[in-house]
């Protein structure tokens, strides 16, 4: 029996810092609330250190309810690192806001939920983690208390509640079929259970997991939540819960579902196709940058589902998924950091002339968007290469072809954003001297930059390139065995 809380040190630290931050925030003056943010940042950094230092080998903690293996370790590092980035972005946006502390606390709790999703080794813990990841997120989505924010929160909540119930139903059915909730025991139980029952349970479970991941057909909340909430929150919602959810799905696929007859790989392959295709098609003619990024994340979930579909058929699946997750999180947060750095620029056209005014920021935007596309030598390229390789290796060549075609399609809308950003100043600025000066001043106002966020964007872009070039040692760490 293993109930050593030190095994869960990153999670414990984050939870403790959230609770402590809540208490502290109640007593601190408004100008000092940043202390709670600093506390959260320290918790994240310490958590990353603990995750890196933890034993890599597969180990089950707390009666096998929580797994500690490469999947958990990667998810910990990526989620905590991402949370750190979002904390900084939030600090820039909510400086001396009356509710600054609340933001930090909610963010930490939601991140904690994502961490637990990634490590859950028991269906009941998975359900609890789902709720922990969701409830603070609903609040975060409506954090601004305005019209779009309320709509975002409401949509997010309603969809989340519905799909959460479906997930609980699925868990109940799987429990009935497999007579256990812990994955290793469940794996044995499901192998002999009636296929129809298991299939029904899997579909219910998928509903919840895909909701957190933001994949088709549970993606309806994504565009509204990302567009309606503040950019910092959007960056979080669009990136980090996905990591927990996809790690959880991978674990489900690799352990309890590995021995069943249910054709879940085919189902996931179809969902992956739907996710990337619909996400891309919907992103084509968006004019709001956040909505465009939202649809782009939906399509990215499609690529991320590919290695899950070939789990067990290709040794490459696990490193491919984990590496892609890390690269994607970094690149996507970089793109959102650019959005945060230009709070007044909302439409694609507002970015016109960015290269001239802020060359470094424009360059970061180009690197991040081309990175999301999978242009070498960024991290997502190596991730995509691994994913395609895993797909072909696992016998899903058609899925790799679909993903390649979709990648070309996605180029179109990323270029719709890049083109104005690198183009010269607004065309009407050259029209007349007086009008030109006005338009120039307008553009200057639209492109007011928040310097810390811009720095963060540059750092993320640079890091995504470095991670891509120095991907060798990282890849070596991602292939270890899971708890079975």
């Amino acid at each position: 029996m293993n109930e050593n809380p030190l095994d869960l040190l990153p999670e414990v630290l984050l939870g403790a810092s959230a609770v402590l931050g809540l208490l502290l925030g109640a007593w601190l003056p408004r100008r000092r609330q940043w202390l709670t943010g600093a506390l959260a940042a320290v918790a994240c950094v310490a958590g990353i250190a603990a995750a890196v230092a933890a034993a890599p080998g597969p180990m089950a903690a707390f009666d096998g309810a929580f797994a500690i293996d490469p999947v958990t370790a990667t998810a910990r590092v990526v989620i905590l690192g991402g949370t750190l980035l979002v904390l900084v972005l939030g600090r820039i946006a909510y400086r001396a806001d009356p509710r600054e502390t609340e933001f930090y606390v909610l963010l930490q709790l939601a991140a904690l939920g994502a961490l637990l999703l990634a490590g859950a080794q028991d269906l009941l813990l998975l359900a609890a983690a789902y709720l922990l990841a969701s409830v603070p997120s609903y609040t975060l989505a409506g954090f601004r208390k305005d019209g779009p924010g309320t709509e975002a929160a409401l949509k997010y909540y309603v969809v989340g509640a519905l799909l959460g119930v479906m997930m609980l139903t699925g868990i109940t059915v799987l429990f009935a079929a497999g007579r256990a909730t812990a994955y290793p025991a469940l794996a044995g139980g499901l192998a002999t259970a009636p296929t129809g029952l298991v299939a029904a349970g899997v579909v219910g479970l998928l509903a919840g997991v895909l909701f957190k991941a933001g994949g088709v057909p549970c993606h309806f909340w994504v565009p509204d939540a990302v567009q309606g909430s503040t950019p910092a929150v959007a960056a979080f919602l669009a990136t980090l819960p996905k990591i927990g959810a996809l790690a959880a799905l991978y674990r489900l696929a690799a352990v309890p579902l590995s021995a069943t007859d249910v054709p879940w790989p085919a189902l996931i392959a179809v969902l992956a196709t739907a996710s990337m295709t619909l996400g891309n098609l919907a992103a084509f003619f968006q004019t709001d940058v956040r909505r465009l990024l939202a649809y782009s994340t939906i399509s990215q979930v499609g690529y991320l589902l590919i290695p899950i579909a070939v789990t067990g058929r290709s040794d490459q699946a696990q490193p491919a998924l984990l590496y892609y997750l890390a690269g994607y999180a970094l690149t996507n947060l970089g793109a959102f950091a650019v959005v945060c750095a230009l709070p007044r620029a909302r439409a694609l056209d507002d970015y016109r002339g960015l290269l001239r005014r802020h060359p470094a920021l424009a360059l970061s935007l180009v690197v991040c968007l081309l990175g999301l596309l999978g242009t070498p030598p960024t991290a997502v390229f190596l991730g995509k290469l691994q994913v395609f390789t895993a797909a072909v290796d696992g016998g899903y060549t058609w899925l790799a072809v679909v993903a390649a075609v979709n990648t070309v399609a996605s180029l179109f809308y990323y270029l719709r954003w890049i083109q104005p950003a690198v183009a010269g100043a607004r065309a009407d600025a050259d029209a007349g001297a007086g009008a030109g000066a006005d338009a120039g001043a307008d553009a200057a106002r639209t492109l007011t930059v928040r310097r810390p966020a811009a720095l963060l964007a540059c750092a993320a872009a640079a890091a995504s390139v470095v991670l891509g070039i120095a991907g060798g040692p990282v890849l070596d760490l991602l292939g270890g065995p899971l708890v079975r």
Partner: protein
Amino acid sequence: MLTALVLLPAAAAVLLLCLPRSTPRTAFRVVWVAVSAAVLALALAVWAGYRDAGGIQYETHARWIPSAGIGYHIGVDGLSLPLLALTAVLFLACSVHALRGTHRVREFAALFLFLETTCLGLFAALDLILFFVFFDLSIVAMYFIIAGWGHKGAGRAALYFFLYTFLGSLALLLGFIGLYLAAEPHTFDMVALTAQNPLAGRSAYGALVLLALGIGLAVKTPTVPFHTWLPPAHTEAPAEGSAILAGVLLKMGTYGFLRIALPMLPEAWRSYALVFVVVGVVSVLHGALVALAQTEFKRMIAYTSVNHMGYIVLAIGAAAAAGGSTGDARRLAVTGATYQMVSHGLLTGALFLLAGVLYERGRTYDMGAYSGVAATAPVFAALTGVAAFASLGLPGFSGFIAEFQILTGSLGPRPVATGLAVLGILLTAALFLRALQRIFLGPLRLPEAPGTARPFADIRAHEGVAIVPLLALAVVLGLAPRFVLDVIEPASRDVLELLAR
């Protein structure tokens, strides 16, 4: 040394971007020309140290991402060395030609230097992923050049170019993955894959991989039916961009065939060589016929590129023909194909730079708008005439040596196809003569568009310095081809040996 050659331009690009805003424009131009010249010097030094015996030289092999089978492996052999030198020459010519440019000089120079790194890196790469990295980055850099410095419709043309060639690059990537998974142990290393011939005896798998590679490389070459991105991209691109696009980037496709498809998929290539022969002949004829119908000078040159690249595809298709008696002929075909890459790079680069001169004076490429230009700009007319005659394959120029070898080499194995391809030369001759006659002869008439009030000025010094050496080199290669052929021939013999497995 090779690594330094490849990375020098990119390092200079970073340096340019880091210079303060107050730096005078002249500084950017000087750095650009100086770095291009240094690259050329390095390339010549590599050539000087290259032994004609063949094989891969200047090899560097370092671990990069071993768990994914990716390594940093570069080197040169007889196929890549001439192309490396061509790249260095053309980029230097472009940097000189752009000396008078005023629009965002710093970014233009930085992009070109970055593009030079990707081109050099691609020709030096001996790892499929390294090859792919440079392949993709060259597309990205060219996209920004067309979109940022092109003419009116550049945005659309650049988008079309990027989408189309990116599709090709992903097809290529899928093919690479197929090769990687077939090899045991899995690797992306070109030398290891070539030695292993991993798809021997697996014809269906080999055919699929060849299909993916074929589409990817055919888009880049481009051959019919994948050539439709080329004319708009060329028409809208700035002169220097066009020169590099046609002179260097198109060669990546045909180089890929010789470097990857033939040696790594010999069986599949032999089975489907006829497809490439047909595609080559169709490209030759289609390119020439459509070029004949063009009224715009630059668009016409763009289509002649399709025609000239078609000869290369024909030659490498014919090289796979069975039968021992045609061995010498096939070697001639492969050598001619490589020679044609160099020759076409020089001539088409010069032609596009000349088209840029025409546009700069008259603000249009429409041949109907000009007449009798030879009277006011004799040097320009003479240079264009020389370039056109060289391009249509007149003896004494490099194009003749290349096309003669290709046609002689292909005639034995593929007589019908070669017979048809000869018609292409006739058509090219007709279209170039007609273009020369329209623009340069007859009564003087110049386009009347805004900004063209001044008379048609003759070639300026910087334009002459950029264009004349390209034509001079074409003459040198046409009169004394031996020093290049000595480098190419051992490599083409190696390729044929690998193909015969």
